[in-house]
């Protein structure tokens, strides 16, 4: 995944309405009017958000002119979550070593207290 594509993904995800739309689509396909319902938003406003999500490759839309149901495309989101997970696991390794250092420091303090 190139940097540009990733930036587009993050930009698309930066908006709370678009994240809510994605969360709704994670539960299954929906039409534009179904998606508009919980947001008290006009259809054109929802369509605008959908276009941003579609350009970022986060959703795909059916070809039937009337309905064009939207569905989520997991690929880019999965990439983002994998990046976060790898960053996390690298730091977790460091902090697990820090746990061991702290246990040793605690033990040393206990011994010093005993010998005093």
């Amino acid at each position, binding site marked *: 995944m190139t940097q540009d594509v990733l930036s587009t993904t993050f930009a698309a995800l930066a908006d709370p309405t678009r*994240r809510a739309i*994605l969360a709704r689509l994670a539960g299954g396909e929906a039409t534009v009017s179904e998606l508009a319902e919980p947001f008290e938003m006009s259809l054109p406003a929802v369509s605008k958000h959908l276009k941003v999500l579609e350009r970022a490759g986060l959703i795909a839309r059916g070809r039937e002119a009337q309905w064009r149901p939207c569905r989520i495309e997991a690929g880019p989101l999965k990439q983002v979550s*994998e990046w*976060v997970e*790898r960053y996390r*696991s690298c730091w977790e390794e*460091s902090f697990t070593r820090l746990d061991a*250092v*702290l246990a040793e420091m605690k033990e040393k*303090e206990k011994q010093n207290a005993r010998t005093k």
Partner: protein
Amino acid sequence: MPVQNSSALTVTLPSDLEILMTREFDAPRRLVFEAMTKPEYVARWWGCSGSTMPVCEMDFRVGGSWRFVLRMADGQEFGFHGVYQEIVPPEKVVSTECYEEPEFGNPEWLATMRLEDLGERTRMTTLVLHKSVEARNGHLQSGMEAGAGQTFDRLAELLASMR
């Protein structure tokens, strides 16, 4: 989904420019602060799997600078440096951090590390603030150097973390 205990590290993306890490340690705050701010301790835990730390210099005072070099198992070296901006023992350290990699434009960010006193335990939060979305994403990407992590779909968790 992985089982999370209270010691597990969480990483979230609070905004376009930020990365937030939260973790608890089973030790009183003054010991955690010491382990994070004295080079003889830092050299023992900072870094990635199989790495050693041939350079760990810390001039730990406001305006003082630090420099770390990580040597990977394959001999590759990665340098980091920065300047301490704010120090409040034993609860807060603010520092600039620069990853010495001209290929990536030597990205620099601001890290604010806070320690919360939970009695016999300590909660750390570290907020990393980048200058651009590209730099933040590049920083996350550098985590990929850690190698193959678990790959699974954590869509719901990710969306929740971005709220």
